[in-house]
C-alpha cells in the first residue's frame, strides 16, 4: 500500500520537498549538537531539560488519544467512527515516533541508546518510556495499517486487531502516566510534583488529538469530495469541546491550588508564563514572544467555547480552525509551558530559550513527523478514492 505515498501531484511533492528540507535542517542542527555538545543548545545548568523534553508530555497525551477512537470503534462496534479510526491510529504512531526522536535528541550520548533497553532500571520512569513508546508505535501503526488494508481489500478487519487494541489500551494509557511521573519524581520542581499531571496530560492530549482529527477529517472531506464525514466531524467537534473544557478546568484547578495555597515555585512558574514577568527573564530575542502563552491559552479557551455553539459546529472551516487552535494551545500548556517554566526558579537568572541547533532539531523532528503523517494520510486518501470509485 505504501507505494500510494509515492504517487502524487506537483503540490504534494512540493510539500514533501519542503518537509524534507526542514528535516534536513534538523539533521544539520543535530550534527552541530553532536560535534559541539549540548553547549551549543540553549540548555544549561539553569534549564537542564530544554525544548526536546518539552514536547514529550504533549505527544504522550496525543498518542494516547487514539485509544478514545480505537476502543469504541473496534471493541464497542461504534461504526460511526470507522472513518476516523485509521487516522487516529496514524496520529498516535506519528506522535510515538516523534516522542522517540525527541527523547533521543536530548541525550548527551546517543550512541548509548541501547543501554536504555539493556540496563532497564524499574525505579526510573524514563526507563519505561522508550520501551512503551516503541511498543505503542508498533501497535498503533499495525492497527492503522491493517484497518486501512482491510478497507482497501473491502474485507472486514482481521480478528486479531481486537486483541491488539486491547493490548494497546494499557500501553497507551501508560504513556501520559510515565510522562507525568518522569516530571513528578523531581523533588524540588513545584510545578511538576502534582498528582494532577497525568490526567492533565491525558485530557489535554485528548483535546489536541480530537482537534487534529477534526482538522484531518474536514480536510479529507474537502479533498476527497465525500459527504460521509459530516456526522463524524460533528461527533469529533463534540469530543474536542468536552476534552478542551476538562483541560481548561484542570488548568484552573492547578492554578487555584497554586495561588490559594501560595505555593512559591508554582506561582512563580505560572506568573512567569502568564504575567509580564517573562519580559524580564527571557533573553532579548525572545521578548516579543513573552505574551504567547497568554494568547495561546485565551485562543484555546475561545475555541472550546466556539465548539460548544451548534451554529459553529455545523460549519466546515470554523470547527477545523478551532480544533487546530485547541491543539496548539494544548501543546503549549502541556509542552514548553510545563517543562520550561517548571525549571525556572525564583531568582534563578535567565530563563531557558532555545538556541539555533535545538531550534533546528525541533523543527526537523516536527517536519519528520509531518512527513510521516503526510505519507500515511496520502495512503489513506488514495485508498478512500480507490474504494469510492469502485
Amino acid at each position, binding site marked *: 500500500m505504501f507505494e500510494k505515498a509515492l504517487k502524487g501531484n506537483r503540490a504534494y511533492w512540493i510539500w514533501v520537498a519542503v518537509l524534507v528540507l526542514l528535516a534536513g535542517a534538523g539533521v544539520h542542527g543535530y550534527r552541530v549538537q553532536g560535534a559541539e*555538545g*549540548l553547549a551549543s543548545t540553549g540548555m544549561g545548568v539553569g534549564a*537542564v531539560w530544554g525544548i526536546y523534553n518539552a514536547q514529550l508530555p504533549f505527544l504522550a497525551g496525543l498518542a494516547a488519544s487514539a485509544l478514545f477512537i480505537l476502543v469504541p470503534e473496534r471493541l464497542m462496534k461504534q461504526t460511526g467512527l470507522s472513518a476516523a479510526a485509521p487516522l487516529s491510529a496514524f496520529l498516535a504512531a506519528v506522535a510515538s515516533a516523534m516522542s522517540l526522536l525527541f527523547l533521543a535528541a536530548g541525550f*548527551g550520548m*546517543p550512541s548509548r*541508546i541501547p543501554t536504555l533497553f539493556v540496563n532497564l532500571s524499574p525505579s526510573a520512569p524514563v526507563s519505561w518510556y522508550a520501551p512503551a513508546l516503541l511498543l505503542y508505535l508498533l501497535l498503533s501503526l499495525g492497527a492503522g495499517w491493517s484497518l486501512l488494508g482491510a478497507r482497501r481489500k473491502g474485507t472486514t478487519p482481521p480478528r486479531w486487531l481486537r486483541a491488539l487494541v486491547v493490548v494497546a489500551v494499557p500501553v497507551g494509557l501508560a504513556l501520559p502516566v510515565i510522562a507525568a511521573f518522569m516530571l513528578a519524581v523531581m523533588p524540588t520542581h513545584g510545578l511538576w510534583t502534582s498528582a494532577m499531571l497525568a490526567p492533565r496530560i491525558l485530557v489535554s492530549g485528548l483535546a489536541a488529538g480530537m482537534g487534529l482529527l477534526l482538522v484531518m477529517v474536514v480536510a479529507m472531506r474537502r479533498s476527497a469530495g465525500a459527504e460521509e464525514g459530516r456526522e463524524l466531524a460533528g461527533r469529533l467537534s463534540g469530543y474536542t469541546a468536552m476534552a478542551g473544557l476538562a483541560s481548561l478546568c484542570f488548568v484552573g484547578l492547578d492554578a487555584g491550588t497554586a495561588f490559594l495555597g501560595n505555593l512559591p515555585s508554582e506561582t512563580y512558574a505560572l506568573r512567569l508564563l502568564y504575567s509580564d514577568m517573562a519580559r524580564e527573564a527571557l533573553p532579548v530575542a525572545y521578548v516579543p514572544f513573552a505574551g504567547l502563552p497568554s494568547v495561546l491559552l485565551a485562543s484555546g479557551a475561545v475555541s472550546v467555547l466556539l465548539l460548544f455553539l451548534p451554529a459553529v459546529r455545523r460549519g466546515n472551516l470554523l470547527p477545523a480552525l478551532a480544533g487546530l487552535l485547541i491543539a496548539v494551545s494544548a501543546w503549549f500548556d502541556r509542552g514548553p509551558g510545563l517543562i520550561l517554566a517548571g525549571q525556572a526558579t525564583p531568582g534563578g537568572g535567565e530563563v531557558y530559550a532555545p538556541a539555533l541547533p535545538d531550534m533546528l532539531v525541533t523543527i526537523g523532528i516536527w517536519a519528520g513527523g509531518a512527513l510521516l503523517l503526510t505519507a500515511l494520510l496520502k495512503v489513506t486518501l488514495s485508498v478512500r478514492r480507490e474504494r469510492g470509485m469502485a
Partner: protein
Amino acid sequence: MNEERRTFMKKAGLGLMAGFGAAAIASSPLFERVAASAWAAAPKRPGTRWGMVIDTRRCREGCSACVDACRLSHNVPTFSDPRRRVEWIHREEGRALLGSACATQKLLPALCNHCEEPSCVRSCPTDSIFRRRDGIVAVDYHRCIGCRSCMLGCPYGEVSFNWSDPRPAITEPTPDYPTRQQGVVEKCNFCSDRLKRGLQPSCSSRCPEGAMTFGDLNDPDSAVRRLLASSDSMRRKPELGTEPKVYYII
C-alpha cells in the same frame, strides 16, 4: 527587578520559611544531635558507610583549598560560562546552603551528599548512577546516556553535565585519574579512587584548617562519629528524606 516582582519574591520567601517552620515543629528538627544511641536506633545498612562532617566554624573566609584540590585531582574542567559549569565541590553562602537557621554569610563547601536514599539514583533510567555497598553514590561514566534526569532529581544541584568536551577546559591534567567526555554527567565520588589506595579524600586532606572530617559513619570510634556526638549538626534539606551523609556543624 521591579516592585511587583520584589514583593512577590518576599512573599514567596515567607511562604517557604513558613513551610520550613511547620516541618520543624512537626517532625524533623533543623538541628540534629546525632548521638550514639540515635545511630544504634536508626535503620542502617551494615559495613562501611562513608560520610563527612564539615565544621563551618573552622572554615576560613576566602579559602578555596578544597575546591582547588578537587579540581586538580579529578580533572574537573573549568568553564567560564556559568551555565556550563562543572563542579564536584563548590562554595556557597551558608544561608543559601543550609537555610535561614544558618546565620553565617561565609562561603561553605558544598558537595554531593551521598544520600542514603538518593533521588538521583531513583531517576536514572540506566542504573549508571547507583548507591555502592559502602554508601558512596557513584556514576558509571561508561554507561551514562546523558539524559540528565539525575540533575533534575538531585535536590542539591550537585550533579554536573559535560555540556561540551571537557578536555580543553582542564588546565592541569592529572594523569592518574581519567577525564570525562562530552555528554555524560559527573559528580563528586567521595574520592573512591583515593579510598581504594588508603588515602583520605583530597578536599579534606588539603583543608588547611582541618575543617572537613571524613570517615565511616557506622564505626562508633571514627572521627566523624565523635564529632557528630560532640556538637549539633545540620544537613541540607533534611525534610526531603534523602538522608544526606554530609553534615555541617555551625
